[in-house]
């Protein structure tokens, strides 16, 4: 299970990074989303992967580390908010600059050519 988990996290972050390096806002936003998924998975794994363990400390016995769960919960909330903001920002940029290039450079070039 560890191997599969590690490969998944790695592939997600690699894809996220690749997409973030694109020149258009849509792939960049998708890349950010993938990267934040990778982060969440990574945080989970940091408490140690266990199966069949209680989530809450309740008497003796095995239990999962509760802290990564708290961290992931916070990270998910913040990640969603940030992604929503990035989407709105990208749409606004598309509207104001007439194109979806991350630099808005296309519009300037077109104006220079005229």
């Amino acid at each position, binding site marked *: 299970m560890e191997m599969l988990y590690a490969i998944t996290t790695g592939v997600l972050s690699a894809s996220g990074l690749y997409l973030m390096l694109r020149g258009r806002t849509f792939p960049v936003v998708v890349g*950010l989303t993938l990267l934040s998924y990778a*982060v969440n998975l990574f945080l989970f794994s*940091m408490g140690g992967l266990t199966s069949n363990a209680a989530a809450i400390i309740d008497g003796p016995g095995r239990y999962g580390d509760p802290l990564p769960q708290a961290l992931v919960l*916070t990270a998910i909330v913040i990640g969603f908010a940030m992604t929503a903001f990035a989407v709105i*920002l990208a749409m606004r*940029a598309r509207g104001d600059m007439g194109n979806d290039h991350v630099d808005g450079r296309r519009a300037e070039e077109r104006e220079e050519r005229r």
Partner: protein
Amino acid sequence: MMSHLIVLPVVLPLAAAVVLLLPRNGNATFKRFLSLVATLALLLVSFLLVREADSGSVQYYALGNWQPPFGIVMVLDRLSALMVLVTALLAVGCVVFACGGDDEKGSNFHGLFQLQLMGINGAFLTGDLFNLFVFFEVLLLASYALLLHGGGKSRIQSAVHYAVLNLAGSALFLFAVGMLYGATGTLNMADMAAAVSQLDPERSGLVIAGALLLLVVFGLKAAILPLYFWLPRAYAAAPPPVAALFAVMTKIGVYAILRVYLLIFGDGSGPLEALEQPWVWWLGLATLAAGGIGVLAARDLRMLVAYLVLVSVGTLLAGVGMRSPAAISALLFYLVHTTLATGGLFLLAEMVGLQRGKAGTRLVKGRAPGLITALLFLVGAMTVAGLPPLSGALGKVLLMTAGEGSQRLWLWPLLLGSGLCALIALSRAGSTLFWRSQESDDNDDRLSRWKWAGTCWLLAASPLLVVLAGPVTQYTDDAATQLSEPSVMIEALLTPKEDAS
């Protein structure tokens, strides 16, 4: 009462922001009044905190009375108290300036401003890494919205870069926090410092990877050399009071580097001691050089000031890289000076732009601004370029004398060279703005008194800092000594309180 004071710099702006964000159409006076009162109260609180921290003990506030290392803690030592005070001083100037009309160019300026203050203060006071992340996000989200305040093409354009880069930085931050948690099993910085000093050598690779990843994140916030390209455009495009407040944002990165690496990887952490030092030292110097070149190349007054922020970041990071109590004391003095001075210059650039009408802040021939503006520009330019008798010179001298041996070989030429670059660029800008201009009637009265008051407030900091140099350097010396002994904080946080009630 005193024990609750530590959490006030976070709670006070939060409460003010909640009230300010309630819809209240068109009632600008009330919003301004409340925002001013909240910021002035914050200033008062931070004065009390500095006085409290100066007693020398490290105090903490455990939220919900969950004692460290398990709960969320706010930690007060000399460094964090000083940073909160600088933020409050800067914020008063920004809010006063914004009351001159900038706050009504978009919606919810004051509410977002208070939220950003909450994030900044929280980042300075927090005692564990994950809450540092959370407060970073709070201040970043507020800063994205503030950067866009009033709209406009250039703001949108730079905000896309700024937001995407910082979101990527946040993802890296979480990776780093995860790694450090996985290796040490704790998030509380003091507890982590204790854990790192007794680290299983098998895990040290993971800790080093996490620590250096954190350095990338803090470097992005502080605008260290390969990660600064978002800064000049974003700062030049931001609304002036926001740009002035952003002057403290890069210092949050510097603060985080100081805090994390001096505490967790400080003296006594064995093989991991000072692992950031070569990176911060060389990249800081490179940032200093790049900032100097950028200052010379700027064709717009606001862009010029943005590059001056970069120069100050390079200077501060070189100070961090020297890693001696004397250097840290000098850099803290320089930090107070440069934050307030560059903040004041951002406000002044806007005043110049308004008085010049169509020419704006571009460094071309245009209408002449008034005499008072010119005098203020003289004071601001002298202080950031580091000319005596103002505080810039004092800070630089302190830093240069703190260098040891071969450090001087690199620091002196680069620091003095960047100062010369700033001097050349500022005098060129000044002569273009104030001398090579058409005569015009004095139009000072067009500007609101609020704007004058805000600008003067921040620019007055530099002469004041010279007058108060004695007590201030005494305080920064003490803060540096306190920082170089991480055991003090570890003991203060981790020994259980006897009178836990």
